[in-house]
């Protein structure tokens, strides 16, 4: 029986600040299959970003288990987590988070550089990724020369270039106008159609509808799961 790509079992996350205990996540169970497009929705402060940080190995759960690609990852060293992040996970941030001093090409190349990939292979991957998002012609530009929508497409290309097992998108349209937002959603949709696994955090139900399945969070708990009917 095939194992899910991502599996969280009874994951909790507690923050301790000045003797105040905040339960950001409580008993989260979540499975995401390969090729699935899942949206995580919920109001502000419900734990969406914390969940995404744990899924992206940027943070560790206080309790529970997390299996990524059939491998438990909750107890890994920082170096191992960095390596998995680099190879298995592609991030798309709300505020793009491109590095302003690097060109478009160099931004997309960056995760491959950390992988120690030879230059010729990197070039091929970067060019493919940029073509895929329609930004090949802006490779030599720096982020400040691009519109918000273009910057987010470059961020998507950066996430794609490493051919990760899963794309984690944190409010990818949050900093875009509706036209550019729609374009980015369309881009994610097309990636999904070509087999990419996508997990997107959004508070906008309109965009959540693009996903196969939506997981609703409230006060750090999964309160509902809905499956979109595709006609």
């Amino acid at each position, binding site marked *: 029986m095939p194992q899910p790509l991502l599996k969280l079992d009874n994951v909790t996350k507690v923050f301790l600040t000045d003797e105040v205990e905040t339960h950001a996540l409580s008993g989260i169970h979540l499975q995401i299959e390969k090729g699935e497009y899942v949206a995580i929705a919920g109001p502000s402060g419900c734990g969406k*970003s*914390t969940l995404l*940080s744990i899924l*992206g190995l*940027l*943070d560790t759960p206080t309790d529970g288990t997390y299996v990524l690609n059939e491998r438990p990852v909750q107890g890994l060293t*920082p*170096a191992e987590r*960095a*390596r998995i*992040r*680099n*190879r298995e996970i592609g*991030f798309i*941030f*709300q*505020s793009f*988070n*491109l*590095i*302003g*001093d*690097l060109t478009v090409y*160099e931004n997309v190349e*960056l*995760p491959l*550089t*950390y*992988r120690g990939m030879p230059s010729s292979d990197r070039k091929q991957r970067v060019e493919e990724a940029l073509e895929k998002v329609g930004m090949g012609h802006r490779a030599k530009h720096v982020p400040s020369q691009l519109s918000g929508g273009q910057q987010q497409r470059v961020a998507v290309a*950066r996430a794609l270039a*490493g051919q990760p097992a899963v794309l984690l998108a944190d409010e990818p349209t949050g*900093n875009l106008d509706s036209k550019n937002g729609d374009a980015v959603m369309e881009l994610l949709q097309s990636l999904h159609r070509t087999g990419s696994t996508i997990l997107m955090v959004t508070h906008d139900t309109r965009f959540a509808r693009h996903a196969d399945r939506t997981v609703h969070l409230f006060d750090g708990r999964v309160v509902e799961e809905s499956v979109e009917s595709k006609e």
Partner: protein
Amino acid sequence: MLSDLRYAFRQLVKNPGFTVVALLTLALGIGVNTTMFSVLNALVLQASHAREPSRMVAVFRTSPQSQEWPHSPANFYDYQRQNTSFEQLAAFSWTNFNLAETGQPAERLSGMSASGDFFTIFGIPPALGRVFGPRDDEAGVGQVAVLSNGFWRAHYAADPGVVGRIVRMDGQPVTIVGVMPPEFDNVTYWGHVDLWRPSALDGPSRQIRNNNWLQVLGRLKPGVTLGQAQSEADAIAGRLARDYPQNNAGIGLRLSPWSAVTTGDLSRRISWLCMGLAGFVLLIACANLANLQLVRMTARIREHAVRIALGASRMQLIRQLLVESVLLSAVGGVLGIWVASWGAKLIGGEVYITGVQGLDLPINGNVLSFTLLASLATGIAVGTIPAWIASRTDVNAALKQGARGSSGDRSRHLFRQALIVSELALALILLTGAGYFVRGMQRAVRADQGWRPDGLVIASISLPFNPSYTTDAQCRAFFDKLGAKLAGLPGVRQSTVSAYLPVSGFWRSSGIAVEGRPAAARGKEPLVYYNSVSPGHFDTLGMRLIRGREFTDADRADSRNVAIINETMASRLWPGGDPLGKRIGDPDPAHPDWLEIVGVVNDVHSTIEIVRRPDTPFQVYRPLVQTPSQFVHWFNVAVRSTVPEATVGSALRAAVQQIDPDQPVYAIVSAPESMKQMTGGLSLTGQILGVFALIGLGLAAVGIYGVIANLVAQRTSEIGIRMALGAQAHDVLWLVLGQGVRLACIGTAIGLVCSWGLVRLLIAIIPAIPGGDPASVAAVAALLVAVALFACWLPARRATRVDPIIALRSE
């Protein structure tokens, strides 16, 4: 790595303000250190050009009074014959030669007389012709000379045809047989030398055992260690003491690596001290840069978070930041070399070694290697901690929209404060060191030295050992004529001729016996410095006659031998008694040559005592005419006159020319100027330390300004809230200033404690520096606090002008 380098370069170009400040700081820090290393390299570390310099050894005669005495010819030849440790052993001494060429005025040359193996020991071949060897050193043969490269170029315009030329030197024909290469003109070996001539001592001179003037240098046989050679030297010294107890009882031999004696101990210690303090300047620069880097890290926190999110390992992130830091320090190093080339020229021009002003301080391979290492170390030191802190960025916090920092802010802030405290402490140490040194030197120079240099013009004359000045009578005749001429010089009120003057100190010492007292053990006799002076000497120098009488014209060569002693000698050897009428003499009971004490004068302290502790406080003066001429062939003239120094000099030259046209008068200078030259090295050290202190203070001021300005920027919203709640400008001013005051006080307190250690070190290195100068320490501490407060006041004043509305809106 290449992409890291490319990115680092782009970062530097993109932030010109940071880059310029950082490069200036690095250029100063690395430049100062490279400059000082070039001094250290030239004076202390420079590899000798000699063949296998590690086998070269200096040999000193030792006694309870001194560890660095020269040797007598007879002892040298005995040691040369008896030892089995040395391949060659040579003796040499500094001397002056008078060169008189047809149609040219007589010229005094600085030179060395050396025994036959002298050049063989160095193994440096001549640039032209040949060197002299043992055959040239035989009595009656040695009418040859080898020129130094500098003299050959200056005097003969580098004419290769000079070899074989016969010149008149000290009234004798001398053949120039060779010219040495430039590397042999090493002032750290022997100061300025124009030429070398064989000693060519005759038989009787080789038997002299009661007069020591020869320096000894040897080359150890391969495989012989210094320890083995020392053991053998001890045995030979024992034999010499047994065989010739009158001259050698209590006398030892001390071997020292040649490299350790080429630079004076004081110069060596001062060079290391300056190098160490230059290191402080670099440390302050590093602290400043680390602070700047931390500010940049804060600004780039999101970039680091993104890199970590994309899978950069901690090491990859640290590497990238270190590449930036090392690239910056490498460029700073290049600029530092430029600063050093300028600094080395400046300092080299002021260095004064063994009578020579100016030392070539090349920026050679050694210096460049040091700069490279210093730059790399600086880059790593400056970059490591900020990079480490950056690698610990809280990614989640940093990636949040509008995040300003992360949980590392507090530790970052504490680290920055610690850096500033260190900077201030280091700056205070530098300031205290410089202040104490300069004030100490001023106090030492201005202290009563027992004579009055103002208005005194001094000069030197060196009579050659040729047939014209072989006998005591010939020399006395010259002194008589000179005395008469001096008295007749226009504007001259007083004058004296003496073997030594207080400027350069006394250089002839000997043990004495006191008539009627039991003889002291050999080598344990009271040691005295001898000076031979003409009548009117004490009056001319402004000394005080305490008891008895001065020398007069009645003290002739054939009259009773008399002496005048100094106050300390009188009080120590005749405590509570009267030394007048008592007699002192040579410890050799067979030839005591008693001198009757006819007067007591005040002690004089020579300028050189500031840098070199005298072997004895006892001073004995003899009439010039009663002194064997061998001790006064080289002598000084001092004139107190109402006319300018240049006029006195010309008149003096003309007077001596009338007595003997072959005799040049040299080193004509006012006594204060001569004192200034003697302490030139120390003045230069004071200036160097002063520059270090100013740079350190400036960097520390910039550092504390940066930290406080950054604090103000970070607390703008808080300040806005405070002002909205009714805080007055002075409340805000004090809020900001208080932080600076706290840092300044902590830095000053730590600096004061550490300064005490530096002051102790300075006093240990230069004993003449008087201890206990709380005023200078308090002054520099106050200066540091004042500068720090001013640096804090600028951003504090800006904080008082914060518009609460704008500040709160930005929040």
